[in-house]
């Protein structure tokens, strides 16, 4: 979209208007469009979907009243929270307390500047795209720490401290994992990384070599931890810290934190898709030759589905796993994930010197290994589902 505005300026569409003004207006407009058309409904629907998916896994029904299958539940929740009293505890630091949710929210929303929606659909294809994402997501920890401190509540403080330690630690394996792919792609631009891959799994960086395959799991785990998701949700561990850093928040401010959390899930999925899963790449079908709109839609759907798959996996993980303890969390990061991610980085660098033919064979083996793992995994899932009792209540038919 930035490229489009550049084009317009070059064509003289805004003659007489300073360039900065055009960019500023464009920025506000684009932010509004992205927020209202994509991010808000996405985070909202994700919150509804998570509750439904959870409910299904837990033999419950979940929200099903507002709209068909309850899909508008998020709107009802949003309206309810907007109408709530804006409560600031007397002992809290009012300025920091009110600011904190917006800092968290900004940290998450700013990532959408560089997250691609399709081949030509991106707000701004910055040449430092992925580095920019790592940078702005760090704002989240500042916001959480602000919330924990400003609430003047002991549970909030503990939650904020936990969160700071956790996010700062897990940025290292996440950053090194990202670096691995940046080495392979030779660029930090999101579109550049996607263009370096192909539409087929054999062209994805995921199956480039065994080390990138391992890096993917490292990245996803670290991203879950950065996003405060189970099994790493210790900053808001409800059974330990009541609600962690959000203990004193209510109404819309409370909602902003969770808006960011659910939106962040998509960001995690989108970054994983960009780095490892070939992004929006679609096969070169003749149907796309003359129709850029159709191509755009196909690319958007491809990217969205790939990214959303990981949102679903995160929900699945959350419904399955218990929470780790804070020292185990740190141990996992510093003892295992940081060394492993460096090993993967060095291994991938080593693979860049391997002749291309040999590299392709190893990549094919990795692909076969990946497919085998997937098949075994789904066979286990099938086994568990067959053994489970799917009905909501055991009915006594006598």
């Amino acid at each position, binding site marked *: 979209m930035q490229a489009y505005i550049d084009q317009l300026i070059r064509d003289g569409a805004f003659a007489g208007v300073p360039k900065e003004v055009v960019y500023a207006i464009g920025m506000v407009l684009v932010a509004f469009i992205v927020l209202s058309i994509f991010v808000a409904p996405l985070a909202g629907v994700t919150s509804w979907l998570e509750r439904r998916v959870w409910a299904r896994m*837990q033999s419950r029904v979940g929200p099903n009243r507002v709209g068909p299958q309850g899909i508008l539940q998020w709107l009802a929740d949003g309206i309810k929270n907007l109408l709530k009293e804006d409560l600031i505890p007397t002992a809290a630091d009012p300025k920091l307390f009110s600011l904190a949710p917006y800092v968290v929210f900004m940290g998450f929303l700013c990532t959408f500047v560089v997250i691609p929606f399709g081949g030509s659909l991106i707000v701004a294809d910055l040449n430092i795209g992925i580095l920019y994402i790592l940078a702005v997501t760090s704002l989240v920890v500042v916001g959480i720490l602000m919330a924990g401190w400003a609430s003047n509540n002991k549970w909030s403080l503990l939650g904020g401290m936990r969160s700071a330690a956790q996010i700062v630690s897990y940025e290292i394996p996440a950053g090194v994992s990202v670096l691995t792919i940046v080495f392979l792609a030779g660029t930090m631009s999101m579109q550049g990384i996607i263009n370096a891959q192909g539409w087929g799994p054999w062209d994805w960086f995921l199956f480039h070599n065994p080390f990138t395959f391992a890096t993917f799991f490292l990245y996803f785990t670290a991203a879950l931890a950065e996003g405060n998701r189970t099994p790493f949700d210790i900053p808001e561990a409800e059974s330990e810290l009541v609600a962690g850093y959000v203990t004193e928040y209510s109404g819309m401010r409370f909602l902003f934190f969770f808006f960011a959390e659910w939106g962040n899930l998509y960001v995690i999925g989108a970054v994983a898709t960009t780095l490892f899963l070939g992004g929006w790449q679609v096969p070169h079908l003749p149907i796309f030759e003359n129709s850029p709109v159709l191509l755009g839609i196909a690319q958007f759907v491809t990217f969205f589905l790939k990214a959303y798959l990981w949102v679903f996996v995160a929900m699945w993980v959350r419904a399955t796993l218990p929470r780790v303890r804070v020292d185990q969390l740190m141990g996992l990061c510093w003892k295992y994930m940081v060394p492993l991610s460096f090993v993967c980085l060095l291994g991938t660098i080593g693979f860049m010197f391997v002749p291309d033919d040999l590299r392709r064979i190893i990549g094919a083996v990795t692909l076969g290994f990946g497919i085998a793992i997937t098949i075994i995994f789904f066979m286990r899932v099938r086994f568990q589902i067959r053994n489970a009792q799917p009905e909501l209540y055991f009915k006594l038919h006598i």
Partner: protein
Amino acid sequence: MDEAIESQSGLNTEDMTISVGPQHPSTHGVLRFVVKTDGEVIGEAIPDVGYLHRSIEKIGEKVTYHGYVPYTDRADYLAAMFANQAFCMAAERLAGTEVTRRGEFCRVIACELNRIASHLISVGTFGQDIGAMTPFVHALRERETINNLMEEICGARLTYNYIRIGGVGYDIVPETCAKIGAFIDHFEPIVDEFNRLLSGNKIFIERLAGVAVVSREDAFSYNLVGPNLRGSGVKWDIRRDIPYSVYPELEFEVPVGNAHVGKLGDSFDRYWVRIREMQESCKILRQCLKMMPKGPAISKVPRKFRPPAGECYARVEAPRGDMGFYVVSDGSEYPYRVRIRTGSYTAMSIIDKLSKGIMLADLIALIGSLDVDAPEIDR
């Protein structure tokens, strides 16, 4: 603490005093702990009990023996059947009342169903304390079926008032017996499913193995009972060692902690004892359904129940351990004194000792693994 401590780095540090409870998500009711922490590490956690005191013991002196049975339900509302039974046993021993044989079997069936329900709550909420949401709902789903069965047996789902002096209030009809049998057939695979989901989970084991270890000696000196005692490897079960009702005729094992994943007597051992006790209860239920004789469910007991002067202590093996009713009679219609001994109260006392030096998250695991139950502590 008030005074600031000068640390080695020259910074002023201070211990933080946190009040965990009485309204905290994982204190299972209204418990309170005054916790002094150094960051995440607990210096001490002092239990503060008394938020759910309803003077059930004192009420016992003001109502008749028959009238007191519904009050005993409330002593531990997750295992109401056992309090019913313990009080009725005490009253029967005072008066020398015989319980009919079918009544005894009805009692055992109802109690073992109740034990499964109580343990389901225990392991489910324990999972939730550790952060696993799904096992809790699955456990409650199964408990719901037991509640339905209980409703068929005695008309109530939580506070049963089923066991009466001399027998049980209502006979368990053959249709209900068949349903209980069907439920057991369904439930035993569910325990395996539960184990696949939670007990075998690596994170779950890591969180519990070797945490808050209770040695055999500590378990004795703090008077732990029930699964908490058995978790430390002591084979002591009132049903087996001080037999009552028809338990001597039934074959069942007493599961004890065996350092399944960590040290003997750690949190996981206590949890694991409960899981295996549910399976043992299923075995007991099967035998009872097979052995149940025909006959009346309750013997003739006078409406004005006046046991001769004397005193009696009756104990049963409740889900939270040894539950005892000490009843003193002065020959009148009302008990002279009722005293209830419950397992959770003593389990609370060991938390102070175990919590030194563990992390805040472990305290939650410890409370959950001891399965303390607020109504039972305060009565």
